[in-house]
């Protein structure tokens, strides 16, 4: 019924688009324009990964690179200057840079013929470990989505350390940017935006506020669906956490930043960022208490009323929830830090 197009044309088109977008993003002098085009470039990469069939990676790239990351860059540009200054240096310098970059590119590309073929069953990745996962994943963990079971169960340590990396990124931004100004310690009169004159905030808009109020509950519901359904469809903890964080960032940018700060204060926010990692680690410890190795969810079957494979499935779900919590509040904390330049009172 449907005409079957050869898939390689789609891939070639996307590769051309990616290169075009990258060149455009790098050649725009105005940083805001470059930031926005960079977000579109990120989404082209997501399309390439979706074209290759790696839907989980594509989902994460779309959520992080094309969504939240662009907002972070815009917040940073808001607090710093918005021009790329022209670098001093004559034509010889630029020629030297061009030669170095070309040599590095040729050197990297010369390794290309040594790659195994696309989907080669004899390549090292596909011949040794992958058949075990493909054959035994459903029997061991009752999780049809192989990516989730490999990520959270067979390679659980790596995911724990990735979550810690997200946590460290949040702490790093917090510790670099956060300044306690003297003004925040004195009694500042609480500006009630409801009684302030309407022209106080230049970006106050009823339409944007109402549309955001409409969309945020759906975003959060969809993100919870993505976390919980990660066993059967592309998704999981990271993607759902990023979309949850993005919903809170949407509230922060369509209403005022003070609106979010009134509800999520600094100390509970930081504690919640840490609690996701703690949940992940606690699940591992609970496995040790019930007699297995660290992060061996199968030993939880003495606690949970299921057999061993379902216990692993539930363990994966608990771990994904932990990851989602950490990522969600990390996104919000990073946005508040970047947008208000560390002062935690006003911002983008």
């Amino acid at each position, binding site marked *: *019924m449907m005409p079957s197009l050869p898939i390689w044309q789609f891939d070639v088109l996307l590769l051309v688009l990616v290169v075009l977008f990258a060149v455009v993003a790098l050649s725009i002098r105005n940083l805001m324009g470059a930031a926005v085009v960079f977000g579109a470039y990120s989404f082209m990469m997501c399309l390439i990964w979706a074209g290759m069939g790696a839907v989980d990676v594509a989902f994460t790239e779309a959520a992080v690179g094309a969504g939240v990351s662009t907002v972070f860059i815009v917040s940073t540009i808001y607090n710093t200057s918005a021009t790329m200054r022209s670098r001093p240096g004559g034509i010889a310098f630029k020629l030297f840079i061009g030669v170095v970059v070309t040599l590095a590119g040729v050197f990297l590309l010369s390794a290309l013929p040594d790659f195994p073929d696309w989907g080669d069953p004899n390549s090292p990745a596909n011949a040794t470990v992958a058949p075990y996962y493909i054959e035994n994943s459903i029997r061991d963990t009752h999780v049809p989505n192989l990516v989730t079971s490999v990520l959270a169960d067979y390679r659980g340590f790596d995911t724990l350390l990735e979550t810690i990396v997200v946590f460290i990124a949040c702490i790093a931004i917090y510790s670099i940017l956060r300044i306690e100004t003297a003004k925040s310690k004195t009694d500042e009169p609480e500006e009630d935006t409801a009684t302030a004159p309407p022209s106080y905030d*230049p*970006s106050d*808009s009823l*339409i*944007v506020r109402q*549309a955001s109020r*409409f*969309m945020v509950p*759906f975003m959060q519901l969809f993100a919870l669906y993505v976390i919980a359904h990660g066993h059967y469809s592309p998704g999981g903890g990271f993607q759902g956490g990023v979309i949850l964080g993005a919903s809170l960032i949407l509230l922060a940018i369509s209403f005022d930043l003070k609106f979010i700060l009134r509800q999520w204060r600094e100390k509970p926010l930081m504690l919640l960022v840490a609690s996701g990692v703690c949940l992940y680690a606690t699940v591992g410890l609970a496995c040790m208490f019930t007699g297995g190795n660290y992060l061996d969810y199968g030993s939880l079957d003495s606690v949970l009323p299921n057999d061993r494979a379902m216990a692993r499935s539930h363990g994966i779900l608990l771990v994904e929830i932990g990851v989602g919590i950490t990522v969600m509040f990390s996104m919000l904390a990073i946005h508040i830090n970047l947008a208000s330049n560390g002062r935690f009172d006003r911002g983008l």
Partner: protein
Amino acid sequence: MEILAYILISTGLIFFLGTTIGLLRFPDFYSRMHAASKGDTLSTVLILLGCICLVSTQGEMNWLLGLKILLIINFIFIGSPTATHAMMDAGNKAGAEPWKKDSE
């Protein structure tokens, strides 16, 4: 049902062509955004409606899939014009000059 899907998708593509031409040819930022937003939203809604019809012809009707595409249509229908409003407001506050007929 299949013919309906193709009609909808091709109509959406025609509108998108109009959007692109408008985006390239209009002299002013405000008129460009006007063309881009209306044509873009409408063409996306039409193409996605065509996708729902296509999906319903492949085997039995997958209601969840159709519902999800309907949700995408819903968010684009509400989100894209609001984003246009916000950008128009930003352009106005930032001081972009509207094009006048005599000042070429």
